């Protein structure tokens, strides 16, 4: 186990900004879903992503950080499957009594709980990290703040 007290701030900033990117992506894919439906929107987004990522791979000359030299395990290719599955699942609960708000709030909870477990146990061989009390406090703040925004601001 190792602690990560000295993570360069730039990574924190990038992660925060990527959240903004994500919400923009959800907005745009959501607009497409209104014109079509959510499965078609997701199909299109993934479809566009294939040549776009291939283009970036061709253009990106800098060697990326890779710490593992052996072949990737087959299960590590399944990220795309679960990602696509979440869109289908979300469409189901969005249109139920749970609604968009309930879906998002519970989804955030599921995400944060599993991330704690995965990190502390080091599952999937990415890294094992001690969970500090501070992390729990952070999560509580994020979840409480998010719920206020989701349920009371709109």
């Amino acid at each position, binding site marked *: 186990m190792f602690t990560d007290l000295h993570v360069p701030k730039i990574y924190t900033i990038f992660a925060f900004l990527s959240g903004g990117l994500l919400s923009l992506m959800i907005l745009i894919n959501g607009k497409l879903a209104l014109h079509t439906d959510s499965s078609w929107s997701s199909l299109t987004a993934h479809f566009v992503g294939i040549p776009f990522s291939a283009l970036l791979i061709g253009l990106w000359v800098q060697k990326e950080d890779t710490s593992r030299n*052996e072949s990737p395990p087959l299960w590590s290719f399944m990220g795309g499957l679960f990602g696509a599955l979440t869109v289908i699942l979300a469409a189901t609960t969005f249109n139920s009594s749970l609604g968009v708000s309930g879906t998002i709030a519970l989804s955030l909870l*599921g995400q944060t709980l599993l991330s*704690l477990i995965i990190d502390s146990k080091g599952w999937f061989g990415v890294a094992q990290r001690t969970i500090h009390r501070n992390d729990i406090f952070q999560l509580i703040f994020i979840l409480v703040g998010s719920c206020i925004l989701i349920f009371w601001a709109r």
Partner: protein
Amino acid sequence: MSFLIFLALFNGILISLSRILNARLGLHIGALRSSFWNHLVGFLFLIPVVFYFNRFSFAQNLQDIPLYAWTGGALGVVFVWSSSWLIPKLGLTQSTILVIAGQMIFSSVLDFWIGKIDSLVPALVGTLIIIAGVLLGKRRPS
């Protein structure tokens, strides 16, 4: 109802799983290539799903869709790329905290800008609490 609650929780579980798997793949082949595979595998999986739901009927009215609606895929590539790159550096928990914070704050600012915020005080309170949560990360106990 409790089944719906489970489905929504499971949604979040799938999101975290997807991100950590892509991160692991990124450790082997680089985060950008991982993003490529994410999109390819997702696309292949969605083909039968879309066929089941609408039999590709939307392929007929593609010209009605505004051009920017197609850029979501490009943003997704960059997001998955950054996610797979950052998770080994920050850990999944910190990454999740920060992405959620960024997501919520950015979407609230956007909603405010387009006039969708009905109650300003809860919006400000919620935003401040999230910011406080992010800043808590700076004071790491030794």
